[in-house]
């Protein structure tokens, strides 16, 4: 029988691609994040999770950050003996030890850790911080990207998520906030990838009325089905795509709570 509980492997994929991957967007949105990287040499950190995902985060002197799948040219390599160990690093219960790039340890401590702390500040925002509309918008935008990427990871890895994904036909699904940021979930032969940019054309769309509504949805304060009735969420196109993405979205909270 299928185990419906969250599993460590799927969580590792989410933590790497959806959580650490959002550093890309943090660097785009937050001046403080960019300042941590400015005028420093490019540096690439590889994350190698045994039995799980591998990816490389590269930080550039112009304040940008990019994630690429796999380990091609990393300056620092952080190996993890299991998905649980990698998830522990994200939780703050495991301290990673580089197998390569000890000379760059200063970057890890002085740049990477502050960046992840800043990301945490936005992702687990305090109510008082959210009163600042600029912070609110940045936090909600980062959540949108994290959730959109997490949807793809759950659709590809999680046992229940894969069931939902196998019912989704090929095509692009636009998940966006009206007059705000958007992401594209691309489905090909039931495999999902997320592009962190709005879809130019799409086969199905789920559009949230505004940042506030998106935030309430992400925080679990409102329900998507109810919001369709009130007109706060607009859906269109291949509804079976939206429907099944919504089922996966239900599981995101299981992993990211």
């Amino acid at each position: 029988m299928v185990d419906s509980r969250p599993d460590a492997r799927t969580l590792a994929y989410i933590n790497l691609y959806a959580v650490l991957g959002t550093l890309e967007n943090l660097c785009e949105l937050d001046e403080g994040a960019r300042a941590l990287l400015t005028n420093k040499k490019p540096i690439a950190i590889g994350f190698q999770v045994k039995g799980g995902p591998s990816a490389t985060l590269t930080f550039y002197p112009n304040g940008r950050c990019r994630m690429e799948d796999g380990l091609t040219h990393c300056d620092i390599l952080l190996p993890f003996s299991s998905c649980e160990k990698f998830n522990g690093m994200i939780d703050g219960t495991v301290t990673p030890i580089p197998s390569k790039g000890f000379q760059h340890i200063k970057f890890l401590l002085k740049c990477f850790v502050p960046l992840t702390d800043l990301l945490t500040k936005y992702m687990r925002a305090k109510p008082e911080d959210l009163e600042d509309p600029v912070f609110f918008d940045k936090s909600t935008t980062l959540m949108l990207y994290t959730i959109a990427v997490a949807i793809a990871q759950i659709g590809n890895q999680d046992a229940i998520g894969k069931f939902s994904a196998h019912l989704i036909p090929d095509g692009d699904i636009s998940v966006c906030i009206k007059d705000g940021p958007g992401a594209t979930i691309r489905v090909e032969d039931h495999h999902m990838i997320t592009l962190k940019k709005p879809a130019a054309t799409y086969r199905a769309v789920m559009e949230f009325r505004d940042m506030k509504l998106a935030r309430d949805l992400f925080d679990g304060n409102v329900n998507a089905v109810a919001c369709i009735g009130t007109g706060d969420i607009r859906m269109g196109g291949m509804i079976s795509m939206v429907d099944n993405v919504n089922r996966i979205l239900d599981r995101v909270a299981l992993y990211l709570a």
Partner: protein
Amino acid sequence: MASKINTYEKSREWFDRATKVIPSGVYGHLGPAEGCFIPVSSFPLMGDRAKGSYFWDVDGNRFIDYMCAYGPNVLGYNDPDVDAAALEQAKKGNCMTSPSYKMVELAELMVDTVNCADWAFFAKNGNDVTTAAIMAARAATHRKKIIFVNGFYHGVAPWTQKIDYPGVLPEDVANNLYVDWNDFEQLEKTVAENEGEVAAFISTPYLHGNFADNVLPADGYWQKVRKLCTEKGIVLIVDDVRAGFRLDLAGSDHFYGIEADMICFCKAIANGWNVSCLCGKDFLKSAVSSLSYTGSYWMSAIPFAAGIACINKMKELNLPVLLREKALKVTGALKAAAENNGFDLRVSGEPALFYLRIANDDSLVLHQEWISEMVKRGVFMTSHHNHFLNASLTDEDIKQTAEIADEAFKAVAKNHPDLF
């Protein structure tokens, strides 16, 4: 003259009130989410009254209704003969400690009408009787697995849902096996792989699922299924909740030339009075008797009286033939309007439950826009569900539907000058 464009101020007011006290305002298939009201602003959200082929919303907008309450309206809303029988029974009694003899009369009528029926068991909703059928199949065979056809809908109980639905446990669907419609070889293989474990094969008479063109049975498909089930001791359940009586008063299994072991009815039995019915063959009667399965209102007398009047009237009208004729007029008129405006409108399924899809794009956006324009102009249809005909639909209704369809196609085309 161009049709009036509906507005829905009062609908919205009522819906907003509803959301305060009812989860999601209107839940389920009559609601804007599951009903795919795209965009929600084009659709009425609350009804006021209905008569014949029409319903009026709380804003006073009238709709020619091609959903028929999703099936129960088969003779026309508030049919005088059915309602007279119901109201007469209401004067005598409805929900009583001792069930009315009307239950026996309706059971006898069902057994006389439905080809495979040796007995009749009554409940309220389709889901009640599909669940009864599954329980009876398991009780009779002492087996646990059930084979479904992908794209199925058999109700809302956990066993009928999918593993990724909210509130459904893997345990609820652990004994569900799935095959593709019309793929007999796959069914045969699934049965072989689960030899001695399959209690039932449950299927609608043809694939009338949502979000996809409906598919009729391939030549000989049902006959092969019937033979396999008989050979392997698998109970063959036909879920005729949606199509029942609209294709054949003797049951849709009869329409396709087989006899089911059990057949489930609901929507069209009593023209909107709430009753559902499981019918079956004699060898399953004791299994059904053994079930601990009942409900507070399952033996209410008013729907039984209504059901008797409805079935008799359906027989007088030769309803399946009548609906087929009307449906072919409707779909013919819609296709002509589509063609005149450069749209590729596909019609699938049995005519009396026709399914529509505009095939000019692969996103269904054009179809949703067209349905929206139809509803705004007073023809109620839905984007991704089969439609339903009722006996009261007139040629004038069909003519008006065609005129509105033409306007709606033109409105969509105007918004897409690059395509049309």
